[in-house]
């Protein structure tokens, strides 16, 4: 009686399936775990890298040398690259101080509340083109297309970052912290309006909010061309949302010491600091996805998995560099200027852009 089992040599087995079989996992589960690791460790390592880029980049822009003393085994300095490891190790070995006047629960909770939204934010963003291997389609985003959340998810998760800041500020029970926390929350909340209206205009022209759809709609022309106003508003809001320099009132060191981070030290500080950099990476990824075609490569219709991931990475790194570049170029605004820009300039501009796009679509029919 001949068995109906498919012969294993009839078709080349994809390498992912081979590893999954070796680990006794279903290929779906294996792929899911791999994607969770990519989505968590990718932005995490990019953020760590960004702290190095920030310090070396600022040194470059200000004609200094920057960190160059940390060395592997006291010998290889590698342009100050080991500084990342040295900083991490230092934070790891520091005494962990919880001030007695602080609210203990909030003080411990704040780094987690700051880290969770940062770590979860990347989940729906496609970091490469979907590809076929064997008889399966692999999507390069943690959630498959058509998950019903789409780009609403990173916006919702990003908005939760306010809680980490507020918990840190209130829990510390320090004047600088509370000042910084109040400023940060009012600022994040104000700029969220202009940001969501700008994103709304993209949803409008796409006719959907799934990131895969948004990237698909940018096949011929990237969104930045028809939506240049929306892009400028969105990018500006991202500086306010991540608390980067033209708007870094939450921790303006010349005014309020370190803002809501004042009382934090050791690994707690490192976690909150790292979360801020992860937010920058996520913001860059959002800009790339919404306005610069995500993983698309100009003049290449189907870049394939490897080229598309590289293209996406290049765009994210570029925008992350713009964040650093702007920080060391512009001075800090005043708080009333920030509020005026947010409520009186960006909000009407964003709404106007939204209405214009709606009108154009309606005219086109």
């Amino acid at each position: 009686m001949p068995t109906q089992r498919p012969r294993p040599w009839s078709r080349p087995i994809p390498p992912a399936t081979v590893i999954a079989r070796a680990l006794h996992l279903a290929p779906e589960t294996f792929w899911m775990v791999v994607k969770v690791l990519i989505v968590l460790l990718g932005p995490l390592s990019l953020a760590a890298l960004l702290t190095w880029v920030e310090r070396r980049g600022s040194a470059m822009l200000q004609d200094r040398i920057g960190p160059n003393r940390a060395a592997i085994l006291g010998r290889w300095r590698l342009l100050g690259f080991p500084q990342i490891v040295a900083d991490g190790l230092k934070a790891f070995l520091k005494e962990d101080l919880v001030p007695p006047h602080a609210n203990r629960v909030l003080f411990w909770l704040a780094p987690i509340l700051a880290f969770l939204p940062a770590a979860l934010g990347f989940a729906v963003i496609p970091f490469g083109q979907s590809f076929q291997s064997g008889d399966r389609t692999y999507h390069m985003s943690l959630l498959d297309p058509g998950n019903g959340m789409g780009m609403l998810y990173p916006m919702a998760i990003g908005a939760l970052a306010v809680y980490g800041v507020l918990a840190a500020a209130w829990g510390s029970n320090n004047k600088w912290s509370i000042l910084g926390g109040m400023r940060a929350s009012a600022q994040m909340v104000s700029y969220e309006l202009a940001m969501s209206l700008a994103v709304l205009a993209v949803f409008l022209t796409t006719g959907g909010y799934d990131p895969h759809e948004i990237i698909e709609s940018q096949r011929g022309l990237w969104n930045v061309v028809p939506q240049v106003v929306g892009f400028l508003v969105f990018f500006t809001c991202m500086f306010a949302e991540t608390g980067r320099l033209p708007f870094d009132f939450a921790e303006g060191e010349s005014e309020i010491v370190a803002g809501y981070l004042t009382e934090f030290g050791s690994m707690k500080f490192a976690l909150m600091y790292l979360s801020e950099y992860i937010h920058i990476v996520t913001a860059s990824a959002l800009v790339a996805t919404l306005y610069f075609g995500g993983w698309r490569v100009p003049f290449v219709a189907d870049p394939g998995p490897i080229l598309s991931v590289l293209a996406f990475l290049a765009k994210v790194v570029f925008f992350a560099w713009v964040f650093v570049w702007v920080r060391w170029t512009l001075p800090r605004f005043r708080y009333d200027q920030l509020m005026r820009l947010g409520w009186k300039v960006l909000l009407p501009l964003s709404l106007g852009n939204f209405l214009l796009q709606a009108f154009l679509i309606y005219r086109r029919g």
Partner: protein
Amino acid sequence: MRGYAPILLLFLVALALPVIIWNLSRLLRPYAPSAAKASTYECGITPATEARDQFSVRYYLVAVMFLVFDVETVFLFPWAVQMKELALFGLIEIGIFLFLLLFGYGYIWSKGALTWE
């Protein structure tokens, strides 16, 4: 659940990471509290008043206005996605909605609620 399991897994891993790091560093880090370390940081000056004091009412105003405008954007999301199907009817509806909202926006602007000095 349409495959939301990865989010749950990511959430658990992201939650476990700080806890693991804290517990590992507890084995290595020193512990030497002192009265000076325990005091509130105020640039070296002895803290005078309580930190949780009154602050500007404008922060509350911003929160309230944000709530209004954020609900507005929530209403706009479904319309933006379904705009072609809703056609002229939807456009007029959203026009009336936005007109009322812009009226309120002009009102709070003229009242000086958006001015920070």
